[in-house]
């Protein structure tokens, strides 16, 4: 990941209608950063296979090593698997509204 910023990226999560901003350090997933910040994002397999932790991307960009937990339509609709997902640059906003 050449040129990746080393400082934590700010990510906004909208969970049950509330906005939270968390810092996701380099090398951490959105899920682990959210749990570390005391937020609850539902998860199960934590390897990107089951789809439980998916959130919809409203803006910004994310990358994920594995997206088997999403169907093609869900990828198209911009879902991100938090357990394997990381922000790509600033401005990532994810929501639990399906």
């Amino acid at each position, binding site marked *: 990941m050449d040129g990746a910023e080393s400082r934590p990226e700010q990510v906004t999560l909208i969970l049950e209608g509330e906005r939270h901003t968390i810092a996701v350090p380099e090398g951490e997933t959105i899920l682990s950063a959210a749990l570390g910040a005391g937020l609850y994002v539902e998860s199960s397999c934590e390897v990107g*296979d089951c*789809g439980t932790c998916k959130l919809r991307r409203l803006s910004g960009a994310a990358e994920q090593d594995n*997206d*088997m937990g999403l*169907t093609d339509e869900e990828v198209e609709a911009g879902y991100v698997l938090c357990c394997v997902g990381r922000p790509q640059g600033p401005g990532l906003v994810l929501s639990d509204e399906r």
Partner: protein
Amino acid sequence: MFDRQFHLEPFVRFEELRRHRPVFYVEALDAWLLLRHDHVKQVLQDPRTFSSDDPRWHTEEFETAPTMITSDDPTHRRLRALAQPAFTPRRIAKLATAVEELCESILDEVEARGDRFDLVEAFSGPFPAIVIAELLGVPREDYPRFRRIAAQAVLATRPEPERSVGMRAGQELNAYYGAFLRERRESGELGDDLTSDFIRAQRDGAECSDGELEAMGSLFLIAGHETTTNLINNAVRCLDDAPKLRAKVVADPDCARDLVTEVLRYRGPVLGNFRFTTRTVEIGETVLPAGSRVLPMLMAANHDPNEYEAPGEFQLERRAKGHLGFGRGIHRCLGEPLAKLEAEIAIPALYRRFPELRVDTERDILPVEVPVIHGCRELHVRV
């Protein structure tokens, strides 16, 4: 408490209990029933405190290898990782055409039965059983046999003497799948099924014993159809009270997803599953010592008025968030994508084929009478 009337309409009984005694000890099960959404969530989200490895499953007479559903991490994680890749939403979506064809071919046979039949025997039983048989690679003609054994195996969740009957059936199912697994391994004929995946994984050095694979196949034979069979049965019961919805399901198959979500909330086929406390813990105002058994009731949580408005109403458009029909946390249902695919295909197909289908009021509905399942042994219908 767990009489036939309870099993037909569990949420009616839960309603009053939740108000007066939301944490409620049931002697026959030696377990605390939990009826509030927040309490059930507390348990499912904390697998360290609430273990799935109940000492009840380890008796000298019935000792078997652990399965993912009866173990904690790291064993749970190791076993689940073996099967998880086969159950991703992406891979399951590829089965849609084959599952649709199977469904239509069973409905062709159902049509030949005339205008009254038992839906469980004719359709909701065989359909998911054949799907899971094909997925595992076991011969599809064997399904009546493993359906019979699986129906007995769930008795293990009842008090004695049924518990022993259930445990014995569980061993019989392990032996059935174990024989199949050995035959496959010896013949070396591997294909595109889960059993072949297991054998390949083991050869490639995955850490799992023969006993664990046997128990895993046997778990799939049970978990993979009893539940989906009852999701279909329960959907038919929900729709029976709602003529407008029946018409909508026929006219608009796209509403199947919302329908299945609401059936899972309103009449989900899994009532709950046991956990065992590893330390003293408070649930609401009740303090439970280490070594207590709890039974978080998913269905009761799904009808909690603190969580859902008018929970006793079946609302197609509700799209309930956070319903617990597939559980929550690390043990959340592995088969969720498959179960949804099957139900979203089967329910509209059934009503397209038989738009006038109604529950036969001249015959009693026979419920499955075990504390972890809400469903039907017999559901007679008229078409």
